């Protein structure tokens, strides 16, 4: 499965809404899809899914604003 699809799967599980499947450019924080605790669950979920370490202190909200941007961020981390 491509990295982006795996990212979206994790996001879908955490967010509990199909919005994130339909619209890769949905604004996760402004749109109320993710709050701070959702973000934490997402970080933990992605770490488990990819076996990587994500440093929260490196995450700018802007870089994680949409499903597409999170995929890009993770792709860069896993080198896919």
């Amino acid at each position, binding site marked *: 499965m491509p990295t982006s699809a795996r990212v979206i799967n994790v996001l879908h599980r955490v*967010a*509990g*809404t*199909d*919005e994130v499947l339909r619209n890769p450019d949905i604004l996760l*924080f402004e749109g*109320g899809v*993710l*709050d*701070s*605790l*959702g*973000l*934490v*669950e997402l*970080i*933990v979920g992605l770490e488990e899914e990819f076996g990587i*370490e994500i*440093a*929260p*202190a*490196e*995450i*700018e*909200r802007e870089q994680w604003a949409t499903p597409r941007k999170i995929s890009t961020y993770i792709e860069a981390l896993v080198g896919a």
Partner: protein
Amino acid sequence: MDLLRRIDLWGRDFPERVAHISEERRLSYGKLLHDSTALAAHLAQDLPDDRSPVAVLGHKQPEMLVGFLGSVKAGHPYVPIDIAVPPQRVERILKTAGARLMLTPDAIADILAGPAASQPMRTRPLGPADPFYLIFTSGSTGEPKGVIITLACLDSFLSWMLGAYSLGEGEVFLNRAPFTFDVSVMDTYLSLITGGTLFSITNDDLTNPKQLYRALAASGTTVWSSTPSFVEMCLLERSFRAAMLPRLRLFVLAGEILPPPLVRALLDCFPEAEVWNAYGPTEATVLATAVRVDAAMLARYPSVPIGYPKPDSRVLIFGPDGRPVADGQRGEIILVGPNVSIGYVGRPDLTAAAFFELDGMRAYRTGDWGRRTDGLIFYEGRIDSQIKLHGHRIELGDVEANLQALPAVRSAAVLPVVKEGRPEALAAFVTLAERPGGADAEVSQSLKAQLSQRVPAYMVPRRFFIMDALPLNTSGKVDRRKLADMLA
């Protein structure tokens, strides 16, 4: 202790000292003294001297503190309301509280920028028995309940804290909780009476981790108070250690169950710091029990105790017959003492149900299960359907009532999604009055949006299940066990 005078003295003697930092904005003790006194003069001029509450609506702006102190100096208790509370709920809070006035940071700034009050302030200062603040919590019928805390209640709480923690001058107190939640009373007033600096974390920081950790690292925090969930979140970052916060020497964790592994992680990352677990409902002024947790205590008990009662109060464990049970036996936690609230504003019915008098002291039925072992109190969950979700106190009935008030909803049941014994999120099971067009996901999205108009975001269930009917048990009630199985 003369609370307001103690705060004012810092302003008189050390006017330059920083009282509050919030998003690059700094409020000095001198300005806090000046502004709160000037605001009080205006309020005393504009409002009848009737002790009516003043609502202060905002987030973490320095004007919030000016609003709180200005109100009480004018003889009016304040009602802190966070901007996260939706307008409909704010309306209900104002009405229930009987507030004549709602201040916002902008309104306070406008008042202070205008001419000074023309009359000298003539008002009766708050006495010990007078309400100091009102904090609204979730009510099981969907109506928020306003807990009345008097000056004497607050005094009892703060005197205990001062003795327990041996706080010095120059402390920096982390302020994580919004002012709507009474955990913030601990950091705010402990800081103000000891001449410390209150360092606020904003909602904006919470969804921007890089900004959050930068703020934490720059804060110089010495005293950390938050829920276990928040500190657990911070620990996800491997650099969240003593090197990031070298002056941090005290964690006070409250608001939800403190898991032993979290304590171990904290002691590991902050070897010089003390970790305290504390417990208390809003009705008993922030905290009623506390204890320092160390490795020896973790080794002795399978769960972390919530602590010993504060010295001027009692904690009783009542059995179903309303009498204390033997040590080690489970019962309802009853709090007795001068820290217990005088009741819910405008709701004598709810007050009578939850409060009573015992040996001449006010007593409160917490609705929490607990037991006492070796003099320590252990918390064992809720008797009713109130839950703690990441430190937020939520009556499931509150969410259900607000869902059922939506025109599209016929019936609703709300359950916590429990992971490793802790509520992680809310799930709503809903039947519809009429089936609108669109897939379940769209219907859920629309219900979420409508519910957000009525309750704060943390009360909006993350998962929705649209059902044809809710399963019933043999007694004809919603079968919550069956619904819980759907979540497992």
